[in-house]
């Protein structure tokens, strides 16, 4: 093979390697892209909002069912009320009780889920225990609030929302 062709081949290889490396980067870049996208359309954790002055839509009501569970973690975790009815735009405070039944301190994180899933984008939270890790000492009991409202933008046929929180032990952060 002559030297000129050899050089040309190597140049083609270098270009293709750059493409491959860029695509590897793109694979990892999908992580922040995905997060941004989900936040933009509001499909993950519900919207976090500051104190807002929303108009209460008193013409209709939405039922919010409160569910609580823990995954692979012997914490007792429950909502203090089973469900509530509220008008869209009306600020509500609900309380959850959690007990660490283990003989050691545990750090865990609650993840929100809503059914139907598109309802998540209409839940606007001002305060939630799910915003941060929760560390409970052995046997500790705690009552934690969620302050939220259902957005008046919620479609009219959204009659019931199941709002669920699941505690997962935070990996590598157990003390």
């Amino acid at each position, binding site marked *: 093979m002559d030297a000129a*062709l050899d050089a*040309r*081949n190597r140049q*083609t*290889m270098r270009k*293709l*390697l750059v*493409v*491959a*490396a860029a*695509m*590897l980067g*793109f*694979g*990892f870049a*999908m*992580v922040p892209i*995905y997060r941004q996208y*989900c936040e933009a*359309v509001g*499909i*993950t954790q519900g919207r976090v909002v500051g104190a807002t002055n929303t108009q209460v839509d008193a013409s209709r009501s939405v039922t919010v069912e409160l569910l609580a569970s823990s*995954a692979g973690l012997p914490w007792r975790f429950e909502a203090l009320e089973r469900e509530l009815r509220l008008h869209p735009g009306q600020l509500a405070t609900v309380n959850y009780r959690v007990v660490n039944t283990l003989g050691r301190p545990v750090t*865990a*994180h609650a*993840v929100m889920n809503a059914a139907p*899933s*598109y309802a998540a984008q209409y839940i606007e939270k001002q305060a939630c225990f799910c915003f941060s890790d929760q560390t409970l000492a052995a046997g500790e009991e705690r009552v934690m609030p969620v302050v939220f409202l259902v957005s008046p933008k919620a479609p009219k046929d959204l009659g019931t929302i199941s709002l669920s929180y*699941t505690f*997962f*032990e*935070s*990996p*590598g952060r157990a003390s």
Partner: protein
Amino acid sequence: MSAAAPAHGHDHSHDEHAHAHPTGLKRWLFTTNHKDIGTLYLWFSFVMFLTGGVMALLIRAELFQPGLQFVNPEFFNSLTTVHGLVMVFGAIMPAWVGFANWLIPMQIGAPDMAFPRMNNWSFWLVVPAAILLVASFFVPGGAAASGWTLYPPLIIQQGMSIDMTILAVHILGASSIMGSINIITTILNLRAPGMTLMKMPLFAWTWLITAYLLIAVMPVLAGAVTMLLTDRHFGTSFFNAAGGGDPTMFMHIFWFFGHPEVYIMILPAFGVVSAIIPAFARKPLFGYASMVYATASIAILSFIVWGHHMFTVGMPAAGNLFFMYATMLIAVPTGVKIFNWIATMWKGSMTFETPMLFSIGFLCLFTIGGFSGLVLAITPVDITLHNTYYVVAHFHYVLVSGALFAIFAGVYFWLPKWTGNMYHEGLGKLHFWLSVIGFNIAFFPQHFLGLAGMPRRIPDYALQFAEWNLWSSVGAFLFGFSQLVFLYVVIECIRSGRKCEDRPWEGADSLEWTHLPCPAPYHTFETVPEVK
């Protein structure tokens, strides 16, 4: 095409006197010859085909009757998972790389691949990866059991076999990228004078596009499995909900790789069929340029349809609609191809030797697979049929009677070129008919099972599904064992000494047929051919 005499005495003498070739094991370990490496790839893929086939037959044996008979459910899950991985990464993909190695240099008038040593390295990486995959059955906890899609959170929870699988995927990815760089460079830089891109045989074209797809998506898969690995061992939470991660994100990244991946397996099949149908219809390919553009369109569209694998994850309706329409759009360039092949046969002087039979089988059955794909593209229908046997039937129609039948067609078509001998036509036809009948008995009833609601990847099923499962298992065993006929035909062809003519197929007119004798000498086109 030039009418130069096929026999090149120069190549023979060069072969015998200029180099001292290593022999035996060393020849294969150290070879940098594209034909040797092609042969290695093809035999390797056949061994993996049988390995994955045994797993498939174990699955079908278990599903022969309702209840649990032969395997425990965990092992069944490993079987479905590793069957998928072995067939995709071990059988179909290496077979196409084998064809590329054998044919592309000869078809474009190049003496070898652009990077012969990297070529050797590409092949010998595949072997340890396959060993890792298969050996993972024998470690504590058994082989990966999460499905070939490696979805978290299940895959994060399983044992060390997952690490072996992830490492195997890394190695296979590296090998594919090296192979693709080699193929692209060969096609772009090593074409004989006069061999313009739009004169290349369609097989070279489809592989050029396939190689670009591989370079674009294999690194994404490597990234995804790396994230799985760090989630498992290094405390990251890419996909771990507990740490704020999201398993659905894995599905997006995986299928961004996964959908182009299925076209990586089928595009070279389009190239092979585009070589065989004109040869046996004795007419030039109808619509050559539209074939090239259709292939490129399919490749580009493959990047924007991944969401149709995950209509049920709760994407916004706009997302579901986008992926539905984009998916249906792919039927347009694919339809162009199908109609071009039919138009090629129209009023041709057709004969039906084994390569042509497999190509026509491909055409009919791949189209059925395409249609069931269109059905599955409809979001509301897919939400009903998601994870049922309808999906299993669909992708086996496109991958077995699509990609695999084209591989068989190609092997029969080029065996005379590779071995210098003619295969046994009667046995080849027997292999075709056993395969096509067995395949349809095995997979057509799975459409009915899926429509009736039978879920996939489960070792037991409700009694109402018993009868079609019985048929499906009978067909699967017929199909499986008829592949031994294929093995026999190939070995018999190599050993028979039934010399074939230099142009066994009068209608075949690419460079490897018009310029080279059968068998192709060890070194070809060391003097650059003239292409008119």
